């Protein structure tokens, strides 16, 4: 079940009412950006659907936060509402397909160059260490220890790229690149998104294996 965050405004309230009960995705509705970000800390978002209308607090969105829009897989649906659920599902499938394809290709390559056992061993190392590392990352953020946070982010970028993950290395590359001007809010958000992506990768890896 995918988690879809829906950003709408008063002009698109009717979309909320149109939500189909048969749709298997879980939808979260937001009419302002702040609420959306707060929810992002607690929940992984598979797809952000932005109904292309004026957001009431758009003027408060900093450039930094706009970057987050770029990071989360998103779908801008404009005025087209007829096949909205179909669009969402297609987009989710596309995301999953790309991630799955990349991970499978990488694991096959390792298998071919070494052995099937090696590929499995590398995955198990990744799965065993990654969660602890993410927790450590959060600890570094709490301790305001950006040097160690950057170092760990570099290692996580490396680890996730090694098993063929597509999006995870991008988030960690951004974390690795922080230079002191970014807010804790931005870093916290990046870590939250990465944690959700990590869970997705684990699911994919389990399917492949």
């Amino acid at each position, binding site marked *: 079940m995918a988690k879809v965050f829906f950003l709408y405004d008063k002009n698109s309230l009717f979309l909320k009412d149109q939500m189909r009960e048969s749709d298997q995705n879980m939808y979260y509705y937001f009419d302002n950006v702040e609420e959306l970000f707060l929810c992002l800390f607690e929940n992984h978002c598979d797809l952000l659907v932005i109904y292309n209308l004026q957001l009431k607090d758009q003027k408060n969105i900093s450039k930094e936060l706009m970057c987050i829009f770029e990071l989360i897989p998103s779908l801008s649906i404009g005025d087209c509402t007829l096949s909205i659920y179909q669009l969402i599902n297609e987009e989710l499938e596309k995301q999953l397909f790309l991630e799955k394809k990349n991970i499978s290709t*990488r694991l096959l*390559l*390792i298998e*071919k*160059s*070494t*052995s099937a056992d*090696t590929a499995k*061993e*590398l995955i198990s*190392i*990744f799965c065993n*260490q990654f969660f602890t590392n993410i927790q450590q990352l959060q600890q570094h953020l709490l301790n305001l220890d950006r040097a160690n946070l950057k*170092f760990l982010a*570099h*290692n996580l*970028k*490396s*680890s996730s*790229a*090694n098993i*063929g993950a597509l999006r995870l290395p991008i988030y960690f590359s951004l974390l690795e690149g922080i230079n002191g001007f970014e807010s804790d809010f931005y870093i916290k958000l990046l870590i939250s998104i990465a944690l959700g992506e990590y869970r997705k990768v684990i699911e994919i890896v389990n399917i492949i294996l």
Partner: protein
Amino acid sequence: MENKILVVEDLFEYQRLIQVSLGLKYKIDLAETVQDAKSKLKNNNYLLIILDVHLPDGSGFDLCREIQFETRHQETPIIFLTAKNTTSDKVLGISIGVDDYIVKPFDPAELVARVDLRIMKSMKKKQIENSFKSGPLRFEINGLRLYVENTNEEKKVDVTPIEFKILLKLAQNTNCVFSRQQILDSVWGYNIYIDDRSIDRHISSIRKKIEPYQKIIKTVSGIGYEFKV
């Protein structure tokens, strides 16, 4: 030198992947930190060094510079294996004088191919530096071995270390005439008294051993000897 490679890498999954990829051909020595690497480099010789850039106690770039200054490892090829994938990182790595720069994640087969190539090139270079050829003679300097051309193949000739040194001195200075005293000084060193006629006995022995090319050592009457190809 043993068939040994030093891998400086702190991430366990990459340590394993490198070990599995290269372990069949080479003996892998692992170091997780700069300090660990330094202590291993102090006590061992390696065919090649694989260096991560981002290490817990320092930078692989700095370690690479230090290694290049040490006489012991000056000639050892170094490969950077890193997730630092920006152009500026690559340019910095290459400008340090590293032999190769591989970005993570890497293809294990490609790593093996690159490592093999670097080791082969380095060995070839050492072989060339160790080998000297003049006319029909080939000298392997480190092993004090002399080979003489014999139709299509080479024949190893047994010479004493002194004979080897005399012949090498002459062969490295083709068409130069050396007096007996000059040969004595360069082979035995100064402040050693040896009858300069003993040179004649050595030359006579060398000539017999390198037949049919004995005439390449010419006697220059009243002076000494000359190597003429």
